């Protein structure tokens, strides 16, 4: 239908089209500018020793190994805590209850808390975990804080994925004599797993990128963390401190480039997961 049905293009059309193309190209230009700038300055810094050496002299020398380990540990802790809680809650909401006051309360609080600024989570984590519970700055404090931060997102994306599983799957399972548990685990869960995974992967990205909340709860020591109770410094915090206190611009760029590469990889994994899900559904 496209070209043949279109009326004569008028001046207004051309002007509007020009404005829209300009806006789109502008956004691409800014994106390319930010990414190329960081990569151009940062990639030359990244080397095997940058990745494997512990920072020395406040981060002026050496690499970023301990910040990579801290980032991974705190993210892993957050995911391990938030994933079962979030997915379990989503299944409860979608499969076990009828719409009612409880579901509405859970959904409302999840929706409200999903938009709360991360600094507020940091504030809470700092006073509650670090001070009141006496965990100090530690992987555990940081992980718990991040877990609470991503919990609303995990609940929402998982519930979304579960709800979109066609009703017929459940009906067939029940009609074959399947119990509720069997239906959930053999019929619903396998179909929803991609969507759930996507939500979790995006949450991993948020944990890796988070700065303020992690700074307040994980601390900022450069030593290699050895247990759940050791403090540490995440890559994002390391970048912030190196850059804002003008300690080492070179290493700051290196860290930022590493972060962008990491986020890019996380996005690629998430997209592949979604595409495979779409392809799988299309086959059916």
């Amino acid at each position, binding site marked *: 239908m496209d070209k043949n049905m279109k*009326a004569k293009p008028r001046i207004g059309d051309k002007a509007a089209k020009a404005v829209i193309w300009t806006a789109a190209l502008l956004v691409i230009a800014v994106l390319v500018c930010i990414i190329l700038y960081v990569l151009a300055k940062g990639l030359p810094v990244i080397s095997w020793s940058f990745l494997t050496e512990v920072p020395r002299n406040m981060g002026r020398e050496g690499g970023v190994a301990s910040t990579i380990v801290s980032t991974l540990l705190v993210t892993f802790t957050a995911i391990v805590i938030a994933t079962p809680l979030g997915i*379990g809650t989503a299944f409860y909401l979608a499969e076990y209850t009828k719409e009612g006051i409880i579901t509405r309360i859970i959904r409302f609080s*999840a929706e409200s808390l999903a938009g709360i600024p991360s600094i507020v989570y940091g504030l809470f984590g700092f006073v509650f975990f670090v001070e009141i519970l006496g965990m100090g700055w530690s992987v555990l404090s940081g992980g718990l804080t991040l877990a609470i931060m991503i919990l609303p997102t995990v609940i929402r994306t998982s519930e979304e994925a579960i709800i979109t599983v066609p009703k017929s799957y459940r009906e067939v399972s029940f009609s074959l004599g399947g119990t509720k548990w069997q239906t959930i685990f053999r019929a619903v869960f396998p179909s929803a797993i991609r969507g759930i995974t996507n939500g979790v992967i995006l949450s991993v990205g948020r944990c890796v990128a988070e700065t303020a909340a992690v700074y307040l709860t994980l601390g900022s020591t450069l030593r290699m963390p050895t247990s759940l109770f050791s403090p540490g410094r995440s890559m994002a915090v390391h*970048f912030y401190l190196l850059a804002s206190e003008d300690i080492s611009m070179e290493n700051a760029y290196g860290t930022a480039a590493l972060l962008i590469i990491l986020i890019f990889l996380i996005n690629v994994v998430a997209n592949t997961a979604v595409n495979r899900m779409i392809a799988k559904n299309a086959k059916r």
Partner: protein
Amino acid sequence: MIKFKEKLSGRIFFALALSSISVLALITVFIVVKGAPMLGAVGGLSWDPEYGEFGIIPMVIGTLAVTLGAAVIGVPVGICCAIFLAEFAPLKMRNIFRPAIQLLAGIPSVVYGFWGLMFIVPFIRDHLGGAGLSILAGSVVLAIMILPTIISISEVALLSLPPHYKTGSLALGLTHWQTIYHLMLPAAKSGIMAAVILGIGRAVGETMAVILVLGNAVAIPDSILSSVRTLTTSIGIEMGYAEGMHQEALFATGIVLFVMIMIINSLAQYVVRKK
């Protein structure tokens, strides 16, 4: 045995849901309890914790100013991009643009702040005067950061319109742009509004990107080149060493932020549901 398993699994899911909701309730109650005592004291114009002055009005103004600036820049550009993606972009460009926008959403906010410090701040200092650390710099950085939210949600709103809107309008002889402007945009209005409101919510809540480019002066701004401090940066800067009343005042700041975001999100939900 099967019955037992059934019961047990139901209980487990219930327990998980209960834990989630208690955790979410805990954080809300905790912040309210911690901040409530100082909530009456934060209405002033002056913030000087050493002298017991805890007025957060300058920070509220700072937050509103930077957010408004970000919206003024980011909203038109974002909506144009959404129209571009939904209507104009060649398939190949669309396939590059979409993941690029997603990447834009994932980049740590502190990297944006730093980029702003390296590019935007010196540019403002050299061409517009002042220190460069300003509302304007913060607005530009935040405008870029809220683009992914605005673009992706508006694009979905445009794409989910029934195709006969467009085909019918084109068949009646309207041009492509007339169709977009007079039919598609009004029809997708609620989705686009929600996108804008959620983008604004993101701008209000952002900390690290603005901490680097605003200058963080506690003062009521007199121009867009003034340095300001937002509610979020105030917490971020002072949390590490605040004690006693000072800490409670930061929690009260947290409550104010909490309420602002709740209002913004409820507004977004209301707009979507009204449809």
